[in-house]
């Protein structure tokens, strides 16, 4: 017995030695998750006030992170539709990664909302019993629930052949679990045959696309419906949310694909590489469209006397560094130039840097949009200010770390690497 334990420990140590970088990465993420756990425990023991302390600016870090993650996840849903709905076969090779990344981004975005709510346990109950159809949050919740279900099913259909192959080579309990997951017992039933039909895959992809894009538009409407928040109000943000979500989705996808291949042993296949450069070009174009949106917003906002005050907060007030430095320079202008240059030079490093800039700028943009939107109007004289607390930062780092941990494990164990676009579920299962 002792000898067996010794042998297993030896094997584990050897595998850790082989994948040193991977285990260091996991340990760092776990350490940040522990910090997040500490902050959450402290908020339960003391008061929720230590997480989001401001009464006058009640939506802050958590909501910004929620918007950032969920919008990027929805953007990936739209990118996924290029392959699944619009028939661009070269996008299908990244199908598994896009679906899994989208699913994890939205799930961890939802986690931010759960941590933000006073009573998250009541949400599913009363959203089902007494939904308010006049409320954008209610619609957004319903649409995202539908989207998660569809994208989950889509991912399942994509990884089912892999699970089936694994079940053939595994033994014991793992084999039993894999057999249950692949629905082997129901092989000849109507439902399984339906799931194996490639058209079903396309229908689910279309439904996921419709639910995702509607949910994203509704996410913009959550802010845009608030007539008393002049910065958010109006039809501008639901449309801008879609554009910004797609460029965030592209940036996430390119970064994750490059990181996966750089840290792994396989070099990037040439078709994936050409797709990365194509995506970088589309990303540059979308960023240019985004600049156009921002310019229109500023122009129309400054002409409207009601919206001048909150807009000037961004242009020439306490948020000016974030706006000009991050939203305009880091998120919009520099990446466009870098990405175009990178595609000419065929440089992965430059594409990676451009995408990273987009993500950093987009996070600051979301944070500023949420916080600055609540400054006007406020009841007492003088503008309220907001800076995140240390505990809030711990929780946000924890959310990002959990997302990265789950994504890393998914990339490792769900074999999300590029697949042949011509695969058909029933062919690979036979």
């Amino acid at each position, binding site marked *: 017995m002792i000898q067996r334990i010794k042998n297993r420990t030896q094997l584990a140590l050897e595998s850790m030695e082989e994948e040193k970088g991977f285990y260091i990465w996991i340990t760092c993420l776990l350490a940040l998750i522990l910090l997040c756990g500490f902050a959450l425990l402290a908020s339960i023991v003391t008061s*929720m006030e230590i997480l989001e302390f401001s*009464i*006058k600016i*009640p*939506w802050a870090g958590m909501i910004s992170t929620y918007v950032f993650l969920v919008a990027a996840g929805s953007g990936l849903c*739209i990118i996924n*539709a*290029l392959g699944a709905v*619009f*028939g661009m*076969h*070269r996008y299908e090779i990244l199908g598994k990664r896009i679906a899994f990344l989208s699913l994890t981004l939205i799930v961890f975005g939802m986690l931010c909302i759960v941590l*933000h*709510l*006073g*009573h*998250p346990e*009541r*949400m599913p109950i*009363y*959203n089902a019993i*007494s*939904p*308010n159809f*006049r*409320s*954008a*949050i*209610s619609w957004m919740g319903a649409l995202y629930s539908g989207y998660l279900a569809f994208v989950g099913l889509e991912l399942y259909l994509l990884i089912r052949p892999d699970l089936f192959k694994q079940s053939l080579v595994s033994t014991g309990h793992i084999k039993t679990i894999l057999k249950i997951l692949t629905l082997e017992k129901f092989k000849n039933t109507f439902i399984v045959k339906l799931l194996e039909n490639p058209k079903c895959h396309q229908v689910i992809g279309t439904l996921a696309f419709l639910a995702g*894009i*509607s949910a*994203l*538009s*509704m996410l913009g*409407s*959550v802010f*845009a*419906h*608030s*007539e*008393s*928040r002049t910065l958010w109000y*109006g*039809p501008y943000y*639901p*449309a801008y*949310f*879609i*554009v910004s979500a*797609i460029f965030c989705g592209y940036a996430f996808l390119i970064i994750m694909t490059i990181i996966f291949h750089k840290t792994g042993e396989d070099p990037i296949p*040439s*078709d994936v590489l*050409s797709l990365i450069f*194509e995506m970088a070009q589309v990303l540059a174009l979308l960023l240019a469209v985004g600049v156009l949106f921002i310019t229109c917003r500023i122009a129309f906002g400054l002409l409207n006397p009601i919206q001048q005050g909150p807009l000037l907060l961004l242009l020439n007030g306490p948020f000016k560094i974030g706006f000009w430095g991050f939203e305009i320079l880091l998120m919009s202008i520099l990446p466009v130039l870098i990405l175009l240059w990178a595609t000419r030079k065929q440089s992965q490093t430059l594409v990676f840097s451009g995408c990273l800039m987009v993500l950093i700028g987009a996070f600051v943009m979301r944070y500023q949009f949420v916080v600055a939107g*609540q400054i006007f109007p*406020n*009841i*007492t*004289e003088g503008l309220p200010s907001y800076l995140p607390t240390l505990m809030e930062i711990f929780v946000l780092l924890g959310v990002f770390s959990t997302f990265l941990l789950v994504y890393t494990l998914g990339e490792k164990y769900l074999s999300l690497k590029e697949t042949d*676009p011509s695969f058909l579920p029933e062919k690979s299962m036979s």
Partner: protein
Amino acid sequence: MKKKLFINRRKFIKVLAGLSVAPTLGLTQYAAADTKQFGKLADTFKCIGCKRCMSACKRWNDLEVERDELVSDKDTDLNGNNWVVVNLRSDKKNKTQRNYMHWACQHCQSPACAGVCPVSAIKRLDNGAVVINEKKCIGCRYCFQACPFKVPRFDFEKRVTRKCTLCYNRFPLNYKKPACVAACPVGALAFGYRQDIIREAQKRLHDLKKPGYIMGIKEAGGTGMITLLPAKPEDMGLIQVPKKIINQNLDKVRITAGGFLGASIIAYAMYLYSGMTQNPDPNIDKENNDSTNQK
């Protein structure tokens, strides 16, 4: 053979008559309900800043009492424990004009907060009180964002949003006024049917023979709380609220439709992008990829 219609002439006339009468009946019911709605008057000319209203509110609603809350010049903000506040404010245009402002939920006739609550936890009762069901509230704070007066505040201890309920729970116990109105020693607060309260406010302003402003008649589409101010709300350091219903359903539909229009344009752009960059035969794409791989 003549085809039989699913509805005969008599039925059609009946339905038509019903359809024309139904809205009228609805309007009559609405009008009757409007006269039954209660309102609260806050007369800032009469208020002496004793803050007994705040104290009475806390006693009745079982809220936490702060040590120095009755200090007249202390500025207090609304929060989960302060549903009613009284603060000294001066007119921006005439600094010598200083009055105590009684501030609480305005009990809008078309409450924006009720329209955005995702779980329908906020309701406007038949008597005009806008009430949050604390057992249903999920604590999302969307009501605070929607409220034009920024009144509903999050209680970090109870983890729900709370605000003045117009003491709706006192009436079944045969109390005739909310706790704050009953506690006011100088008659600065009054309670009654909204129409009577508006008339009372106009009478008081007329009797004063001073310039003044009655807030709540048209603000946010009309509110249950009527405040008699010495100047316009924005001059007294209060939020300037548009004189129309906030967050109208039609407005929400318009904005949402704008979003969906944007989504449709994006979908069309994707369709064009896929059409422009794709070969008519998908196998050509695949062959190209294969040849690139071989190279």
